[in-house]
């Protein structure tokens, strides 16, 4: 386990900034004087309290399976891929949102893209190919994706037209259970 390098940090924050409007809240100091930090272990990036990260130094790299919240993994080409486990962190500060109706929640959770017919409402002024968080109509975050069309263009779209390309959904907790949290 080690802190992130300059380049890695940039890549991670850049990806998070696609979905979140306010990144400063991520590293803001907590009430008890503690703060959150990013740690890398087995090419996975964890978002963890500093006190817990310090405790985790007593565990060897190989023995340490996971700590804090896994945000995603750094690929071998140096890019960063967000996992569904990052949803609780990005959902509160989401930049753009899409709410899907009851009939659209299940298809999304099974891994399909969001079509226009399933959209209950969406945030205004959303450009094309921009990260967005997908919510159910009862404001429960279901996953995140990338918009296929801007809001104005999406209005003119057919009901079967894709509005949002799925990146990750809560169904992955079941589908990718064995590889989601830790990898060796």
């Amino acid at each position, binding site marked *: 386990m080690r802190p992130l*390098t*300059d380049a890695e940090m940039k890549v991670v924050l850049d990806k998070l900034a696609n979905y979140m409007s306010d990144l*400063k809240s991520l590293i803001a100091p907590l009430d008890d004087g503690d703060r959150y930090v990013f740690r890398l272990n087995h090419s996975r990036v964890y978002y963890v309290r500093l006190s817990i990260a310090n405790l985790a130094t007593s565990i060897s790299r190989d023995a340490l399976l996971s700590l804090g919240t896994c945000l995603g993994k750094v690929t071998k080409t140096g890019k960063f891929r967000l996992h569904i486990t990052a949803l609780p962190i990005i959902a509160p500060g989401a930049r753009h949102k899409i709410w899907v109706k009851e009939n659209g929640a299940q298809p999304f959770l099974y891994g399909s893209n969001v079509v226009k017919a399933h959209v209950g409402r969406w945030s205004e002024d959303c450009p*094309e190919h*921009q990260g967005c968080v997908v919510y159910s109509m009862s404001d429960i975050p279901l996953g995140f994706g990338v918009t296929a069309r801007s809001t104005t263009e999406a209005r003119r779209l057919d009901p079967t037209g894709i509005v949002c390309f799925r990146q990750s959904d809560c169904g992955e907790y079941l589908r990718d259970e064995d590889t989601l949290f830790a990898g060796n």
Partner: protein
Amino acid sequence: MAPTRTIKNKHAAGKSGVAGSKAAKRPSSDGVSKPKGGKPGSSAKATPSQVKGRPNLPGLNKKKKRPVYTAKELGIPELNMVTPVGVTKPKGKKKGKVFVDDRESMTTILAMVQADKDGQIESKMMRARQMEEIREARRVEADKKDAERKARLEDTKDSLRKKRKRSAGGGKPGGDDDGEKDVRAFSAAGTKAAKPKSGGGKKRVSFAPAE
């Protein structure tokens, strides 16, 4: 005779080349002198011993001190080297990664990334808005053209209908005042109208213009 001589000379040059003497580098045309061509082996053997015996010859010293240029000095592109550019690490720098763990540096990177992303999104939205405006303008123009075309079509339709009415009205005997204007039409209609009188009222009206 001439070809055999040249062959011998070539052999001599080859042997001397193995020994690495001066004669090796001399072109064959230069060393055509008879005594040298006749005894090639002796001259080749003699040269190395001379080098050992006399190391301070001015010509040999020059060869040894030939300057060795690096790729940078010659200005050769670095990609031609065996090792890729990225692999060679700069000398004098500290080994290992530089971690970002203190809050200040993290905040700096964060602010930089945030500003960069905001700018990107803003420009994207601006572009999208502009494109939308252009599309809207085009749509309005197309609508206007469509409406104009429709209006023109309606006009022609109306004019045709009026014409037909006029002509149809003229066909009825004594039914219209306009029929007096076109005498020929009136007369034609009148002659045709005489026939259907015996057949029936409806047929008379519909078949008159067709004939």
